[in-house]
């Protein structure tokens, strides 16, 4: 179970980092979302993985650590708000700057425009 879990968290993190490093804001937002999923699963596992263990005393023979569950809940709420914000910001940037590149300038367009201004001079 631990190996599978670790593999999933690792895969999500790797995909998240890859997408965050892309140039377009859409893939960056997806990357940030994947990264926050990975982080939530990771936090959850920091209280150790157990089967048939409730977080309430007296409900089962074993019991699990309730703290990471509370932490994950907080992290999910915060991550959700942040994702909503970054989506709106990405749309605003698309409207204000005329493209969806995170720098606000498309790399090839930049070369073109500098070439043009060079020609005008």
């Amino acid at each position, binding site marked *: 179970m631990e190996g599978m879990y670790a593999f999933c968290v690792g895969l999500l993190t790797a995909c*998240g980092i890859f997408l*965050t490093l892309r140039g377009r*804001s859409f893939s*960056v937002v997806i990357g*940030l979302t994947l*990264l*926050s999923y*990975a*982080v*939530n699963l*990771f*936090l959850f*596992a*920091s*209280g*150790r993985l157990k089967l048939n263990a409730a977080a309430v005393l007296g409900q089962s023979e074993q019991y699990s650590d309730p*703290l*990471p569950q509370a*932490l994950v809940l*907080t*992290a999910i709420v*915060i*991550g959700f*708000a*942040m994702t909503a*914000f*970054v989506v709106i*910001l*990405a749309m*605003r*940037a698309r409207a*204000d*700057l005329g493209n969806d590149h*995170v*720098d*606000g300038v498309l790399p090839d367009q930049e070369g073109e425009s500098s070439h043009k201004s060079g020609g005008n001079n």
Partner: protein
Amino acid sequence: MQHLSIFPILIPLLFGAIMLLPPISRDLNSQRISSIIGMFFLLISSATLLFQVESDGLQIYALGGWQAPFGIALIADKVSSLLVLLTSFLAFSIMLYAVAGRDKGGAHFHPLFMFQVMGINGAFLTGDIFNLFVFFEVLLIASYALLLHAGGKQKTQAAMHYVILNLVGSSLFLFGLGILYGTLGTLNMADMAIKVAQLEGETATLAKTGALLLLVVFGLKAAMLPMHFWLPKTYASASAPVAAMFAIMTKVGIYSIFRVYTVIFGDDAGELANIATPWLWPLALLTITIGSIGVFASPNIRILSANLVIVSSGSLLACAAINSEEATSAALYYMVHSTLASAGLFLLADVIARQRGKAEDRFVHSRPFVQPRLLGFAFAISAMSLIGMPPFSGFVGKVMILQATQSTAQTIWIWPLILIGSLAALIALSRAGTTLFWRHNGSVAAEAEPAKKLEIAGIALLLSASPLLVLFGSDVSEFTQQAAYYLHDIQSSAYDLLPGVTQ
């Protein structure tokens, strides 16, 4: 009073929430009045808290009555109460400036500003590292919205980088916290400081990974070298009151570095003692270097002051790397000085930009000022204070940092860098001053408006801190020395916070 330590968090929260509700939210004037009242209450309660900590020793506030290490505790010690007072004073002065008209650019400026102050105060006061994360997020989400205040292409562009970088930073923060909780089994900072000494072997390596991940996050907030690229653009594009408030945001990162790597991973951490020092040392020196180069290359005052913020971050990180009581004391003094001085310069840059027509605050020939004497005098004070010339607080702060070096190797590296950094600031600021104030042509711009009285009052409050920090220098430095002793002494910074645990 028993509940005093939570007031710096509650007051901005309540005022911010009330200002979002109908009777006040519709009317800008009543928002302004309630903001000023809120900031005034905040200033008074922070000052009272500082005096109470000074007379009665540190205050532990167990939220919900759950004792540490099981519940979340707010710790008002000398370090945090000093920084809370600094935040409140800064916010009060900036608010005086903002109500004169800079808050009109967009909706909800006042509530967002309140939430930002709440996040900063909370980050300083909390004794729980997950709670630190939560307050970081509170101050960040308010700062995202404040950065976009008044709108514009440049702001959107800068906010895109700032938001994405900080979201990645938050994820890393949680990864680090997960690792630390998994290995130490606690999130209370005092408890972590005690338990970390028992780690050995593989677990210690794992905890080291988590701790260094946190260093990346705090470094991002503090603008440590490879993570500082967002800062000049963000600070230069934000509207003036927001940029001035951001002056303390890098200090939140520095404070967290001091709190985590002095108290938890400090001298008493067993295998993990002083793990951050080998990283902090070269990065701090490189940050000062890059900041000084940036100071030379700045085309306008706002970018210039943003680069000065990077230089002061570098100096503070160098103090964290020296890792001694004297250095921490110097860092606390310098933190107060550099926050207020750079915030003053950001506000001043805005007034200057509005009086020069199209040239704004760029270093080019342009029209003369409406109020050349007033602005020239204010610029001279803030420049001399930031450069570190006597008789202003920058001089005392820099001397304290220079005196804190312990070995010859440290002296050889730090002295030249800090002094050359000051020289760079001297050259850049005098070049800026001569261009702005002496090289002008034509008549006063038609659209230029003189600075309003409240704006001048806000700037004057921030600038007056600099000579006052020198006049009361011995009291302030004595206080920072006691605060530094507290941070470095594990008995008082960890064992005393946990009832029933002894060394």
